[in-house]
Every structure is written in structure tokens, then in C-alpha cells.
């Protein structure tokens, strides 16, 4: 198989398979969670569940002062790589073309040099969180295979994308094919690991806020 054949496969059937698993997997898990339902709460409501739930979705995005003080590194690096991932995935011109093709609409891109620098910062912060995870006895104790797999499939597209952009070491079609395949691996693993939090976190935050709101306590 020539590298162009590999690239054509990654852009064609490979991406199709990954998209099916990604979309179907996420919806299966979300619908399953929603269908669990909750028992009716017979206690009298002491406040609005919904307003508290919606508020919590936003408030939990900002760490409270004491949490931040306790884990400055975890919070800061968490923000850095999440924002970095957002910028590199959603604001790079070639990626936006892909979203436009699938969704039917696009949005403005950032200059390529900004994406390039962001990718470096994101890769560094992801390496730092892994080192921290391995060094911190509590984090290491709590870590499972799922955590390391999630980390690996997240950093892989960043590294392969960076190499493909700078065209290092191999013919360009191979580099781009490897990058696309690494994204496809991420898409396939996504719904079945903790990476699923990208879709469940708002649901969870809303629920946490809503039960507190119902009881009339601060969430």
C-alpha cells in the first residue's frame, strides 16, 4: 500500500468507520444515562432545581479559591491543555474545512502560527500532567488503564499533527495519514473511556446543581 493509498483510506473508509463508532457510541451512552431516570422526589421543593442546575453548569467552570490553592498545578495545567485542545482542534483552518464539510457551516480560523505555538504549549502541558500523575502518590494510586489510555489517544493527534505540519522525517502523505489515523483512534476510544466526560460533564453539573437547588442549598 502506497502512502497515498493509506491517506485515501484514512480520509475515506477509515474516517467513516471512526465517525460511526464515535457518534453511535456517544449517543448510546447518553441515552442510556438519561433513560435511567430518577425517582420522584416527594419532599417539598425549597428552591428552583432548574435555575440552580443551569447556574452550576457555569459556576463549576471556575474553580473555587480553596480548591485552586490546594492544587494550583492540576487546575492550571488542566485549563491550559483544555483550552489548547479547543484552539488546535476547532480554530485551525484545515480542521474548520472538515467541520464545514460535515456540519454545513464553518467559522473563522486563527493564523497558522498561533495554532503551531498553541500545539507546543498543549503538548508540554499534557506531558507535565502525566509526569505529575506518575509522581504524585495519590494520583498514581487512583489512576487506571483508562486514564493512561485517555492521555495517550489525546496527545497522539497533537504530536502527529505537529509533525505533519512541520513535515518531519517521512513523506508528507504518510505524515498526514498517520495524523488522521491517530484522530480516528481517538474517536473510536472516546465514547468508551473517561474521555466521554466532554459530553457528560454538563449533564452531571446540571444534576448536581439541581438536587442542591431543590433542597434549597448552595451548590
Amino acid at each position, binding site marked *: 500500500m*502506497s502512502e*497515498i*493509498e493509506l*491517506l*485515501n483510506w484514512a*480520509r*475515506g*473508509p477509515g*474516517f*467513516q468507520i471512526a*465517525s*460511526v*463508532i*464515535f*457518534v*453511535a*457510541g*456517544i*449517543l*448510546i*451512552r*447518553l*441515552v*442510556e444515562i*438519561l*433513560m*435511567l*431516570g430518577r425517582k420522584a422526589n416527594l419532599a417539598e421543593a425549597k428552591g428552583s432545581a432548574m435555575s440552580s442546575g443551569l447556574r452550576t453548569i457555569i459556576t463549576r467552570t471556575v474553580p473555587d479559591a480553596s480548591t485552586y490553592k490546594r492544587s494550583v498545578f492540576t487546575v492550571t495545567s488542566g485549563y491550559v491543555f483544555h483550552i489548547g485542545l479547543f484552539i488546535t482542534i476547532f480554530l485551525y*483552518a*484545515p*480542521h474548520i*474545512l*472538515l467541520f464545514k*464539510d*460535515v*456540519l*454545513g457551516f464553518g467559522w473563522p*480560523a*486563527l*493564523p*497558522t*502560527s498561533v495554532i503551531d505555538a498553541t500545539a507546543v504549549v498543549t503538548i508540554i502541558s499534557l506531558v507535565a500532567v502525566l509526569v505529575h500523575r506518575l509522581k504524585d502518590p495519590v494520583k498514581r494510586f487512583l489512576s487506571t488503564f483508562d486514564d493512561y489510555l485517555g492521555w495517550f489517544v489525546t496527545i497522539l493527534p497533537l504530536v502527529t499533527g505537529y509533525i505533519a505540519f512541520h*513535515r518531519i522525517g517521512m*513523506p*508528507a*502523505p504518510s505524515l*498526514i495519514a498517520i495524523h488522521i489515523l491517530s484522530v480516528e483512534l481517538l474517536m473510536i476510544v472516546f465514547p468508551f473511556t473517561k474521555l466521554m466526560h466532554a459530553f457528560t460533564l454538563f449533564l452531571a453539573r446540571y444534576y448536581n446543581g439541581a438536587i442542591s437547588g431543590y433542597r434549597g442549598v448552595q451548590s
Partner: protein
Amino acid sequence: MTNDLSRKDKTLGEALRSQGISRRSFLKFCAATASMMALPPSMIPTIANALEKARRPSVIWLSFQECTGCTESLTRAHTATIESLIFDSISLDYHHTLQAASGHAAEAAREAAMEENDGKYLLVVDGSIPLGNPGYSTIAGISNYDMLIDTAKGAAAIITVGTCAAFGGIPHARPNPTGAVSVSDIIKDKPIINVPGCPPIPVVITGVLTHFLTFGAIPELDHLGRPKTFYGQSIHDRCYRRPFYDKGLFAETFDDEGAKAGWCLYKLGCKGPTTYNACATTKWNGGVSFPIEAGHPCLGCSEPDFWDGGGFYKAISIPTENITKTTIYAAAAGVAAGVAIGATGRMKKASANKSHQKVTIDDLKK
């Protein structure tokens, strides 16, 4: 003149002089060839010397499933270039598009050349070979496959001209109705130099011939059998529009302000980033321009399967299949599966509740 030209023992230098090419322009050609092949200036006299003394090698040119575009590229230059004269000065003993003879007379010429220059002639092939049915493409009743096998036997080396011969090209494109394959899919025991392109740049074809005449060996090739001197760098890396790519400035349509300002054509489907060829440096029509300079994205014609990349105007980052449709079906299937799994869970819970028996005092006394 014609008789003089066709003299087999004539050297290349003699042939060029007899056509009025001065020593100065000959050396200029040698210098240009040296720089094009990334050789040091000290090699110019060597090239000149070798070409000067080179006997016109016998060349047999086989055209299989092709469109004659490669031959056109080489011969239909606006003016008679020195490259085309070099080409005239090889002994092109068989080329059924160009030769006057046809049918059995033409085949006799091929057989005579093969016999006379056994083990020494250069075989040039353009076009792919159909394996589906030998009748898809025949010459004088001989199938392409048989003619290739027969002619390749006594060849010193094979040069595949054009993407069809090098990689299967357009006939090989999905669904490949003729079962077209490249020369290297069939011939395994001869040195093969792939000179792909649709068509290849004329100067690249003559450059490869010059290299063979100068050094008596095939040039350094990349992993796809292409001479590294011409196919060593991608169009993207040598593109004069590259700074716009780096800045993120793209033409969105063929007639917007970006297109007029000469911005990068990536979004219009340019395959420059994945294509290795000399277009951006050697250029076409005597160095006048190349497709990107004319405002059209690169099609990637010197790469295998360039016809199956999902469309010439689809950017490399866009999937080749219809992912919107795929994801809609996947979403519907996902929701259905989620509901089914959820419902099964609920049923289990309900039946567990139903069969649940409360523990009574009597049970505990047992």
C-alpha cells in the same frame, strides 16, 4: 540531413552540431542539467564530455493504456528546445505514435532493435497494462502484457513515463474496469525509473535520459522509484504561495479577493502538500509557469491514485466520503441502541422489583 541523423554510430555531440546547436548553448544545457540534478559545477565538463561522446542509445517506446499526453508533453514544445533535440538524438527505434511505419512493419522495427541492442536498449513505457482481459488493449494483435514481458527481457533499464505506467494512473482509478496495473507491478527483475506526472514535465524526462547517458546508471530513486533530483521535494515546500499558507491566508473561491491577491489554494483542493514533483521549481512551457501560478490547485498527478482522492477540489483535510449522511445514520442507530439498552435495564429493574420478597419476622426465625 535525415540520413545523417539516423546514422546509428553517430555521437550525441555530432548529432547536435549537425542540427546547428552551438558549443555554447550545449554547455549551457549541461550546466542547467547539472544544477537541476543538484550536481556540483565541477560535474559540468563530465556531463558535457559524456553527452558529447555518447552513442545514440536505442530506445523502444511502448504505449499501452494511455492518452498520448506524455508524448505530446515531450514533443509538442512551442519551439524546438534543446531538450527535444537531445530527444531527437537518441535512436528512437519504436514509438507507434510517432513512427511512420505501422502494423507488422512497425513490429519488425521493434524486433530488429531488440535483437541488435540486446541487453543495452532503454525501454520507455507510457500507459498502464490491463490484466482484466488481454483484449482490452492490443498492438498488432499482441496484448500489452505480452509485449511488455517480451520487450523488457533485453532492456538495460525501463523508464516509465507518466503516472499510468508508473502507478496505474487514470485507468487504475476506481473501479478499475480493465484491471490496469503499473509496469513495476509486472516487471520485477529490471531497474525501473518512474517518471510520473499527468503528463510529466518534459525537462524531467530528458533529465533522466541525460543522467542515464552521462553516468551509464540510473539516478538515485525515492521509495516510489522516482528520481530524487526531480521528485525529492513537495510542491508545497517549494510553492511561492507557501507564505500565505503559513499566515493562514487562503483563496475561498476562484474569483474572490484572496484568489486575485494570489493567496494559498489549499481550501480549493490543492494537493501540493502531498505531491512530490518539480513543477514549482522547473515549471512548464520553458519555465513560464505552473498550474498553481496560473491560479489552479495542484491535482497531485505525480502520486499514485491521484484520481481517487475524493475530488480535485476537495481540500486534503476533508473526508472523501459523505460523513454527514454517515453520522445521521449512526446517530439514529446510536439512539435506537441506547433506547433498547435503557429499556432492557428498566425491564430488569422492574422484574427485580416484582420478584422482590420482603423478609418477614417468620423468615428470620427460621
